[in-house]
């Protein structure tokens, strides 16, 4: 990635933001200006109940909590002793449970008190499996659908010690988490609520979303997409660092919008990809978080402005334009994560090679490598669950990443047998696999125009160029 293309991408991102902001401010010059996602008035015609706020996305927050808790559980294996019970417990969070399950994560931390302790305090009867991408996941062994992949990962995770399997290099908490975030949240938002449900004949604005509900079809569809995005309702007024620190549970003052001393997961916490967006935005090179969150707020205002009538074609076009901004930027956030972790894996391989050269203990670095690879793979798979068919890009990404990381004995997972056991074969060389990571970074720049480019391994090239000195010398012999 050249500096020029970085600058170009940055300018494009800024222009996209600027144009979206200009566009919206023109469209809503009448006076609505919302800095937070809600409350928005009830506009449903004929509604005579007592509700005054039509915003509702607790189901999505519940799914974020299911995800966070599942990730935590995936690291609780004791090497096989608790495999059966742990698998059952994880499946209860993935597939849903009749019981009111405890919130395992995010849970109270010193100075960061969470308001809810159980899932039913947020929303009851929710699961992840029903909302997981149903297509075949080509980048994972076994030719399984999204829910089958996660169920398989859960089964294997339960048998590990602490979530990491050194025989395959799989770090299940990372794999499950990063893939689920894409297969559930990203997929549902961009493939469903911001796609088909924006059409005129789907969830019309003149009718309740479901009989008895106080919000309209379009209002709730948009709210659900926002819920999957995961940003706190008041987050637009915060800095990238504050939003990041909320997800890291470090800044209760920024999170606690209503000042009750507790963080309400339903509206005051940053989940999922919103958290990653804030992490990239901290660099100052990108503004994914605000771009996406602003587009959600603006879209909600378009729907509110319709005052319970069916949306006009112009209004739906406006919504679709905003949905496109959201989708493109969301995809970039995931691509940035792929870029970042490809860089981490590259660095880890370098460290492993040095340790191998010197005969030092590689176990800690190998575990770190597995963790980063899990993040890379999870995000790479997530990227393929969006609205767009990535075609050749997906094939290249999957081949470059492989089914598993190159292992210390120069083997690599190459498939899965009919019994669900991973099969391994001779791996490519460390050097070649390391080069694959650079190719992944290049692919992310070329196909997704990523800008933040955290862990850019070509920086080493740049450092070397600096070391060689100024080529612009006029010394003459």
């Amino acid at each position, binding site marked *: 990635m050249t500096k020029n293309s970085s600058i170009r991408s940055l300018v494009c991102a800024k222009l996209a933001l600027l144009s979206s902001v200009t566009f919206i401010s023109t469209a809503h010059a009448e006076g609505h200006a919302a800095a937070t996602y809600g409350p928005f008035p009830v506009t449903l015609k004929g509604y005579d109940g007592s509700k005054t706020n039509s915003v509702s996305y607790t189901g999505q927050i519940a799914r974020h909590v299911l995800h966070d808790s599942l990730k935590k559980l995936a690291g609780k294996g004791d090497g096989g002793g608790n495999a059966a019970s742990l698998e059952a417990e994880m499946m209860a969070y993935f597939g849903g449970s009749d019981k009111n399950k405890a919130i395992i994560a995010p849970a109270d931390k010193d100075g960061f008190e969470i308001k809810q302790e159980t899932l039913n305090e947020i929303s009851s009867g929710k699961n992840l499996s029903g909302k997981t991408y149903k297509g075949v996941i080509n980048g994972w062994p076994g030719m399984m659908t999204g829910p089958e992949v996660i169920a398989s990962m859960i089964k294997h995770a339960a048998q590990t010690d602490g979530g990491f399997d050194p025989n395959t290099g799989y770090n299940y908490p990372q794999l499950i988490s990063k893939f689920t975030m894409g297969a559930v949240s990203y997929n549902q938002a961009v493939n469903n609520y911001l796609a088909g449900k924006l059409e005129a004949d789907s969830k019309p604005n003149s009718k309740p979303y479901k009989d008895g509900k106080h919000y309209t079809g379009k209002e709730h569809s948009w709210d659900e997409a926002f819920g999957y995005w995961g940003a706190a309702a008041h987050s637009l007024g915060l800095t990238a660092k504050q939003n990041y620190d909320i997800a890291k549970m470090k800044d209760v003052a920024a999170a606690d919008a209503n000042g009750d001393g507790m963080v309400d997961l339903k509206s005051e916490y940053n989940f999922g990809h919103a958290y990653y967006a804030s992490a990239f935005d901290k660099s100052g090179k990108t503004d994914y978080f605000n771009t996406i969150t602003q587009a959600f707020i603006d879209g909600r205002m378009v729907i509110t402005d319709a005052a319970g009538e069916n949306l006009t074609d112009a209004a739906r076009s406006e919504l679709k334009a905003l949905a496109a901004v959201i989708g493109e930027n969301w995809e970039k956030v995931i691509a940035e994560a792929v870029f970042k972790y490809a860089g981490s894996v590259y660095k880890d391989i370098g460290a492993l090679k040095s340790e191998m050269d010197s005969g030092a203990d590689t176990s800690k670095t190998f575990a770190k490598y597995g963790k980063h690879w899990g993040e890379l793979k999870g995000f790479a798979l997530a990227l393929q669950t969006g609205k767009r068919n990535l075609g050749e890009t997906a094939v290249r990404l999957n081949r470059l990443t492989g089914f598993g990381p190159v292992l210390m004995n120069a083997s690599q997972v190459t498939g899965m047998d009919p019994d669900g056991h991973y099969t391994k074969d001779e791996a490519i060389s460390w*050097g070649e696999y390391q080069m694959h990571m*650079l190719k992944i970074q290049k692919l992310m720049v070329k196909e997704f125009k990523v800008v933040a480019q955290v862990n850019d391994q070509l920086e080493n090239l740049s450092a*070397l160029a600096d070391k060689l000195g100024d080529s612009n010398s006029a010394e003459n012999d």
Partner: protein
Amino acid sequence: MYYELLENFWGNFLDPKKRIFAGYLLSAILIAFLWLVFRRNLSGREAVVKIFDRTVLFSRSSFADIKVFFINRVFTFFISPLLITQLVIATAIFNLLISLEWSVSNFGDIVPTPLVIASFTMFVFILDDLTKYIVHRWMHKLPFLWALHKVHHSAQHLTPMTIFRTHPLEGVVFSMRSAFVQGVSISVFFYIFGNKVDLATILGVNIFVFIFNALGSNLRHSHIGIRYWNWLEYILISPAQHHLHHSVASEHYDKNFGATLAIWDWIFGSLHHSVESETLSLGVDDKSDRDPNSLSDLYIKPLATCFRELVKYPIVITNYFARKLSKFRSCALDDSVSIETTNQSTRH
């Protein structure tokens, strides 16, 4: 602007990446002193007087070198941002290499890191020196480049500051050469060896470049004609060999283009062993009575000559092809005549 120029000037004396770094100048003075005392049998005082010869250091030629240095900084200020950098070339080549889908062997994995660093450091040094030789040769052989390079050769006295006596356009050529060398070296080594690649340095400078500079590289542009043993002058260019390169004598034309290594001159037939520098007359054998230290001769005239030489190229090329075409047509005509003659004779 003035402050920046002065800072830039003094900065050269403090930066070990620059030839006139104070440390290199001091080592050159020390080497010159030892040479004069032990080889030329001068007293210490005589050696010092010789080294700091006022007729050289305060010559018009020497002042012109400094004048060119400052004026060139202004040109550099405007031209520099437009020039392609080594990083751009390195990134472009590297991206090309990784897009070729070649299967990289595990060569990079098995070569120990110190060997990778040593190889890279040496590769950069050798490629840098070879391309300096080639470009320097072009500067002398191609008339439009010689018009520019002549500025450097117009110095009648050599001092360490003479390395800056360069036409700004020649500076652009140097810059592109350096960017090419560094871009190729970085990208190819990074492609093969990844993060193992590093540069072995002393004070942040390529170790070979540092040694070359610390061993008196500044004496190349000086009036102290240190000569090496005959055999060593096949390998390394001695200061006296470079003085000969600046000689106006026709038998010394186009000799000793090398920067550090004499090997290139040896291989390509341009090597000339050193002679006593004191016998040499330096500069350009220009029959005109023009002042080689005037701004006009340092900047404008070279540009005009360069342009005049360049515009000759289309004419030269056209004439070349015209001659070829004419030759071809006359051959074709001869053939047809002979065939006709043959036919006629057959008929008879």
